[in-house]
């Protein structure tokens, strides 16, 4: 998505293929770099300083290949595009922020939606704070968060209320609540239930259900009515912030003229030998479709996104069968301990690239001059442990699109 966005912003005609289902699992937070080295579990206040250390220690890491200015530009552009599509993020500072998680841990991240940023401030200042919970929202327990953090945050309290209109419903789902809160009446009733419980709280947290398409307005309405800062806490996937992110990106990308083929998949991808253009055969569209492109950006993700697939013999790249850097045997893929600090070796598997973001073929040379690879499909990174997922996707997309533009202008390497 980021690649499509950046390409469109540069005026390159762009068609995006494949569904954005992976975004549904997003938490809405944009990670740049939280932990490095992964094995030590060292946290960074300034992700840019962390990136500098990363570049020194792991020169093969994809983020090591993007200079700081580009990273900054990429993230700013991305966040601005989201803002233009109605999803506002807190301004990006040079430091990481901390956010509460539903199980009571604290997450290091970089880009925080505006509806959540008051929580980051609250985590630093630790004022008296109320966490509101809805009966029936199963994966979220304000009691748990308070219990887990309570010794470090004495002013943290929790209260459970009924969600207006859903009193008879056993199980609540975040997306439904978010939509319901877009109605002024439901909002009013919710606020009426929360107000008397505020006590001396100077900030109040909710699970992330404050609106779906009109999240900004709902959040603002809550703050106006409760007269104190309000923040959202990310919930388990599929979460409303993930839905918002998906919606905003789809809208931003479409608004910039990117054609989308959401239900399609690439059946075959072939290249002209002289590097002229690539042909993509699509399935999933009635009658099929064929796309001709001068450059192709592979941003297909890892195993859960089906960019990489694995059988008992090994991992391979799904569309072209590009060589995948990976441990020699499956026994080495995963540690015995799930939370082993070193992380699992298979997470670092992926595509190797040259300095121009082109994945290498079997002969160690770029597979095709116009083929680029970005994001989590790249080797030598463990985004889940380093907390750099979004940054990885966005920054590498930026750098690769930059390269694409150069190629199309004729300045790029062959």
């Amino acid at each position, binding site marked *: 998505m980021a690649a499509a966005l950046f390409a469109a912003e540069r005026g390159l005609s762009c068609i995006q293929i494949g569904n954005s289902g992976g975004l549904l*699992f997003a938490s809405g937070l944009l990670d740049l770099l939280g932990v490095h080295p992964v094995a030590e579990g060292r946290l960074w206040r300034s992700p840019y300083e962390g990136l500098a250390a990363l570049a020194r220690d792991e020169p093969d890491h994809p983020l090591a290949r993007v200079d700081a200015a580009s990273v900054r530009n990429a993230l700013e552009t991305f966040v601005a595009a989201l803002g233009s599509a109605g999803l506002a993020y807190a301004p990006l500072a040079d430091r990481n922020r901390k956010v509460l998680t539903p199980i009571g841990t604290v997450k290091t991240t970089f880009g925080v939606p505006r509806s959540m940023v008051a929580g980051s401030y609250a985590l630093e200042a630790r004022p008296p704070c109320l966490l509101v919970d809805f009966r029936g929202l199963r994966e979220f327990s304000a009691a748990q968060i308070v219990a887990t953090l309570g010794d470090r945050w004495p002013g943290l309290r929790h209260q459970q209320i009924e969600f207006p209109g*859903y009193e008879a419903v056993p199980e609540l*789902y975040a*997306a439904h609540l978010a939509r319901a809160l877009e109605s002024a009446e439901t909002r009013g009733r919710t606020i009426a239930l929360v107000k008397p419980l505020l006590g001396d709280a100077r900030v109040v947290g909710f699970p992330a259900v404050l609106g779906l398409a009109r999240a900004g307005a709902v959040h603002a309405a809550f703050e106006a009515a409760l007269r104190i800062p309000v923040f959202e806490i990310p919930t388990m996937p*599929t979460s409303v912030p993930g839905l918002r992110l998906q919606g905003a990106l789809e809208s931003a990308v479409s608004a910039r003229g990117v054609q989308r083929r959401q239900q399609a998949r690439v059946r075959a991808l072939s290249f002209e030998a002289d590097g002229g253009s690539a042909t993509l055969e699509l399935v999933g569209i009635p009658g099929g479709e064929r796309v001709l492109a001068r450059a192709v950006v592979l941003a297909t993700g890892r195993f859960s996104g089906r960019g990489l697939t694995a059988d008992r013999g090994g991992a391979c790249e799904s569309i072209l069968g590009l060589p995948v850097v990976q441990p020699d045997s499956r026994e080495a893929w995963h540690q015995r301990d799930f939370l082993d600090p070193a992380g699992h070796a298979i997470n670092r598997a992926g595509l190797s690239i040259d300095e121009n973001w082109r994945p290498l073929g079997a002969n160690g040379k770029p597979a095709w001059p116009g083929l680029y690879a970005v994001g989590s499909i790249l080797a030598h990174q463990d985004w889940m442990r380093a907390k750099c997922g979004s940054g990885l996707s966005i920054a590498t997309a930026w750098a690769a699109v930059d390269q694409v533009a150069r190629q199309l202008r004729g300045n790029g390497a062959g």
Partner: protein
Amino acid sequence: MSPVLFQTALYASLALCALGLVWRASAWFRVRIGTDARAVTPSRRIVALFRGSASALFSRRLFAVLGAFFLDVLLLRRLYTNEKLRWLAHLLIVVGFTLLVLMHALAPIVSAKLFPGYQPTLDPYLFLRDLFGLMVLTGAALMVLGRRSARRDLTQTRDRFGAAFMVLLAFVLVSGFLLEACKIASPRAFYRMTDQFIGTSDPRKLAPLRALWASEFGVAFADMKRPIDPLLVEQGRKLNSESCASCHAKPVSAFVSYPLARMLAPVTSVLDEGHAEVWLLYLHVFACFLGLASLPFTRFFHVVAAPISLLVDAAARDRASPGQGFSSAGRASRRALALDACVRCGICDSRCSVAPLARYLGNPGLLPSHKLLATGALAGGRLLRTGHEDEALRAADGAFLCTDCGRCTSRCPVGLDLADLWEAGRGDLAAAGLPTPAQWVQARPALDWAEFLQARSGLHDLYDPDASSALLSAGRSTFSRCVQCQTCTNVCPVVAHSIDTGHGIDLTPQKVMNLLRLGLRDLALGSRMVWDCANCYQCQESCPEGIRVADIMCELRGLSVQRLGSVRDWKAPA
């Protein structure tokens, strides 16, 4: 023909027709379709009629109604948008017949008043009469041919005496042409006329006139010498212009009857002898009266009911939500009206989304034309009589297969609110103990159905008899990609709005998928979620793993009917 006889027959037919109309129309206030109609008395419905009409006419909806009158009733606009050929045929019939009635049948009170000096034997009336008659015949022929088209071979066109009435109509027209032909060719009529207006019927004296009339007016004198002397014809012309021309134009313009008369020339004398004119007249007139009297009792009552239906529809459509503005009394009457206003054109059938299933399942009961008749049969109690169980069950199944897409309603040329009728019909079916699957499945909890299936199959828990089949819901690979992300449930509008647990859903899409994965399909088959599913496809389109959730729900519904259907051990009430 004796005026007394004529008058008597006329008034008798009119009276019968009027009585028939009243009787038929009364059904609109008596017949109860839909459970909400049970509570409404006929008098309330009549009152609602007056109130509704008043409110329609004394508001801006009057314009909609007037517009509908001109465009839909007179010019048959809706028929035009559906089938142009049929529209043409119908227009021919309507226009031809109306004008024929006005100009010819009602000549003494219409044509004579409008056109002083009207004589039926003058132009343009000669021409017009034949033209109108031919229009009707042509239109009727086109209609009959159109009905034979294969596309609508399943359409329910059965009605009372419909064919007979068509024959009667044809008879009226044909007898009319014949009558005129006879009159044109008849020497006896000639002599009668000359006797009355010239004073003689002596052939020798009338020789010039005879010559003219034989050569240009088609009279078939048996004793006419051929070739006819043109000088005589010229003499005759002079005489004609003095005595006859004021009432008689050359019948050549009667372009149907005149050739017919010429064809009849050889047998004219026989016809004359046999007073063909007379009995043809009697036949023609009495056929008309028969048609008039019997009109309310046949499908051609639609000439009254259909325009009313179109006007009512115009009055209804102008409201924000069509049909919703009607009180239950109004709706009840409108449904009963629909039974009469339906012209059996079959356009609804040709537009029905599930029509192909009629052939595939061998149950034409799902076609709108059949459903309309079934609804009527149910309301009249006929469906509930012993011996009609099969018909009743097919009607119920047909009602179920309707997807409520509304195409039949939007296309109906006579403006019937079919969508409302189907909904009401389903309520009546349920009340009669013949609920649609969505109703009878949801009448029992899912677990009961599961236990029923277990008992029937005798297989232990978790056994899936379809494991090797191509069924989506049994296939291993269907669910192997599910990562339990709950996206399907989160985007499901049915779950979002199911806040009344008394009547709400019992499962969610994710739970249904998991039950299937666990091999517990029996638990899912009878669940409310499966039957409340709106088929919106949000789940399937949003699933990040491409699992065909909505398709599976459809399949489960089909399987339910198939496997749970035997519980519907329905007997007609004693």
